[in-house]
């Protein structure tokens, strides 16, 4: 190259280089995700929680994460070996893991210890009590999510409002999760306030549950189902038993669609959407999960009139008017 041309090229390069740098696309809020496909792992421990996943995905889409375009999900429903599941997700270099339930989240976090993979949980009764987060405002440990607890007491009251004559409430519980214990504690307090008697039985297996249920006819006026993954998993058994024995059911789990007569608690879809906002803040805004406060889900009154009819309960209009969801 001619010496003059070399000098000219150098001068022009020196002048234009800052210009090119200036004109080069900066990693802005909306552009840093452009062209990148995020991989999000979803650990769903129970099919009854699929609505949370649906709400999460729907919310993610609202925030610009469209499945197949810039985000893809790998979802596992088998929680028998969470470690393997998480290990596989790590190998696949997931950008975020969306979990549900305290036990699943805790196991996931344990497996992820030291790994920079944020975890968003989509429905933990009391994440502080479960040891998931240190506080709601500053969760820490690269995890945040949506708390669903807090509606149990009121849910218990709603059951009593729907079944005013009930004096004995049967509450099965499992020992699989500390959430159940917390929930049971609240229920006991609520029963005392409401001056009703609780009938509880520990049911960690389906058999135990079946046996326990078989023992309550003529003794309990209603069944209250606490936030227990085991019970949710075997919800059909309870509902079927309740229908057969004309026992109204209530719960704070929001599982009215799955047959519980009256619930007051989270709406799974809504919870999933709130969780998606947090996930978006992590992925999109690059805000560490640890600095995103845990949000509390909204509580909705849901009534399954089919179940009510089955068990011979007429839900008053005053209650129906206050319901957010009614299954007729």
């Amino acid at each position, binding site marked *: 190259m001619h010496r003059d041309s070399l000098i000219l090229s150098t001068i022009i390069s020196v*002048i234009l280089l800052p210009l090119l740098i200036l004109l080069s696309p900066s990693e802005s809020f909306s552009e840093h995700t452009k062209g990148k496909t995020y991989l999000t792992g979803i650990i769903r421990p129970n099919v009854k929680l699929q609505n949370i996943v649906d709400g999460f995905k729907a919310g993610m889409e609202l925030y610009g994460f469209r499945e197949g375009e810039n985000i893809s999900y790998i979802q596992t429903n088998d929680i028998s070996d969470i470690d393997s599941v998480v290990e596989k997700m790590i190998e696949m270099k997931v950008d975020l893991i969306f979990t549900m339930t305290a036990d699943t989240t805790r196991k996931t976090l344990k497996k992820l210890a030291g790994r920079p993979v944020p975890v968003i949980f989509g429905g933990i009764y009391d994440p502080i009590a479960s040891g998931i987060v240190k506080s709601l405002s500053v969760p820490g440990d690269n995890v945040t999510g949506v708390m669903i607890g807090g509606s149990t007491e009121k849910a218990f009251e709603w059951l009593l409002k729907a079944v005013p004559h009930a004096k004995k409430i049967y509450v099965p519980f499992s020992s699989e999760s500390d959430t159940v214990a917390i929930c049971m504690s609240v229920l006991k307090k609520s029963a005392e306030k409401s001056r009703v008697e609780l009938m509880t039985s520990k049911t960690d297996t389906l058999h135990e549950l079946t046996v326990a249920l078989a023992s309550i006819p003529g003794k309990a006026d209603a069944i209250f189902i606490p936030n227990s993954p085991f019970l949710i998993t075997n919800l059909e058994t309870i509902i079927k038993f309740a229908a057969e024995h004309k026992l109204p059911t209530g719960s704070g789990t929001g599982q009215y669609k799955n047959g519980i007569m009256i619930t007051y608690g989270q709406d799974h879809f809504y919870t999933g959407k709130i969780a998606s906002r947090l996930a978006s803040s992590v992925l999109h805004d690059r805000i560490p999960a640890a600095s995103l406060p845990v949000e509390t889900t909204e509580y909705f009154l849901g009534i399954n009139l089919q179940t009510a009819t089955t068990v011979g309960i007429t839900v008053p209009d005053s209650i129906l008017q206050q319901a957010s969801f009614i299954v007729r």
Partner: protein
Amino acid sequence: MKIKVSIRRRLVLSLVLLAIVPLLLLGTLLSWQSYVIQQRQIIELQNEKAGRALVQINSTIYGLEKALYNALNIYLNILDSDISKQRRVLSELLSLRDEKGTSVFNELTLIDALGQELARESRTSIITPDELVSRATSEEFTAPLSSRKTYFGPVFIDGKTGVPVMLLSVPVIDVRSDTVRGVLVAEMKMKFMWDIVDKINVGESGLVYIVDTTGRVIVHPNPSVVLKETYYDVNIRSGTGTGLDGGKAVLTHDTLQLGNRHLHVMTEVPLEIALRNTYTSLLTIFVFLVLALTGSIYLGFIIVRKVIRPVESLAETAKAISSGDISRRSDISGNDELGALSDSFNLMTGRLAETITSLKSEIAAKEAAEKKIRLAYEEWQRTFDSISQPVSIHDREYRIIRANRAFADFFKLSYRELLGKKCFELFHCSNGPIAGCPHRKTLDTGLNSSEELFEPTLDKHLRHTTSPILDDNGDITGSVHIAEDITERKHTEEKIIASLKEKEVLLKEVHHRVKNNMQVISSLLNLQARQISDKQYADLFNESRNRIASMSLVHEKLYNSRDLAHVDFKDYVHTLVNGLSASYGAASSRVFLTMLIENITLSIDTAIPCGLIINELVSNSLKYAFPEDKKGELKIVLEKADSDEDRHYYNLIISDNGIGIPEDIDIRKTKSLGLQLVSNLVEHQLQGNITLDRSGGTLFHITFRELKYKNRI
């Protein structure tokens, strides 16, 4: 020649002044205008958005108030109802939700006129009658009770959820008695405001949020910000400032007035976003400027490379050539004008080199010629100066235009002092040419002129010799003047003349004395002859006397003539012959003398023998040719016959028609002294020839030539 202001520097200055400076000024002006307009627009937009948020929030709160009042209106006697009914009413109110389905009340409490809670419903807890307390002293009770207006309490945080809530209490008024019979206190969640501000788009990434009087953010599109207990400086007002996240932002501030409470409604747009258009304008201007700058630099570079550098190269080449390196050539090539200029320059340089080479040759030749001329001139000058006589060259105006050293020395003036002076001023101290000026004569005649003059002022005799100087046309342009100092010669001449005169006098005296002595001898012989009676002997004496007289006559003629060396021989012959004729008396009277003598002068060496010859032959004729009183004729002829070298030949013929000389007398062998003398004088002294013709008398034809003078000393 040193270049004071280079074209390159002028070019750079021109580019800076004509391209970059105006662009910078224009860019700065446009940027500033864009910045001001953009900021004003974004603030107006934010104010509008804040206003919209205020309207929506006020509208929602108004709706909630209305809902509470409506419930109270529906249940006019709620205060008098049983607690279950009261709880049912409160529960129904708790079910109120915003558009997004979010509940707006956490808790509702019905208080009687005394401040006692009658019923309380919560969204999360079971409130038993035992839990009802008196709130008679609480502001949320006393305020609406006394004012009969809605009361807005301070914002506080729900300990379970971290969500900000505000107490909203409305008076329960008995329309019949128009008295406040109680208060309905609602714990209003601020969450619904989150949804309102979340829906308000302030530009691309602007937002609206609300800060309470403590500075805590209670409403924000992102719940995390609220839940994180974010605080903000509420003293910040509209304008550019620090945003919620610590970055620079354009901020606006408004006040949400809720009864006796007010909240700060803030809008902010990141400065980067707010001024994006400004930045875009700036970027556009900058890009334009950079492109213009690049273009200018490129143009300047091209000009430098294509024009300036070739020009500088040409200038450098020209400088080198001007310094003498005519072998230098411009290495600029191309098909443009500069390439053509370079080619022409090289061609010109080549020709210049050829011309210089030729000139050098010519100069060398000229120098050689000049050297020759100089040498010639120097030689001429040396020669000129070596001439001992003063030599000068005068123009037609008598001005001295050149002079040799002798001339300068002669007048004791320098060469420069001499130049231009008039010659007559120097030589004659006159104001004009003197009479007989040789220079004038030469100018007039074109011939050499010479004049010897005595210069009284110089006290010298000078011989002025002038020779004309002619131009190519033959016209006289001046003369060469040689002034020869002849003073010494003049003095010598005068001495010689004096000496000559003295010698002439002496010679005349000698001739006079010789003549006198000869005359004395002649007189003695005459006296002797008179005493001799024998005529024969007397005649001998007379003949001798005549011979001496003839010689004496020569000396007489010599000292009487101007030329002491020559004798006017015609006069001599006449005197001599007349004397002889007188001497012989009667005999000569019968003889008719004819003398044809040319004007001839002879030296004394020739004249004396020649006079003796004439004396002898005339005497012989007078004496013997006409005996017995016989008459006859005697003819004497002397003429120049011919010339040889510097001597003349003469014919001397002496003839008579007398009796003639007997045939038997041989003039060379005769005993006659006279004839022997003639023969000897002619042949031996004059080295001539003598012939005798006896046919009609006697005719002696003598041919001789003048003798050369012989130094006698």
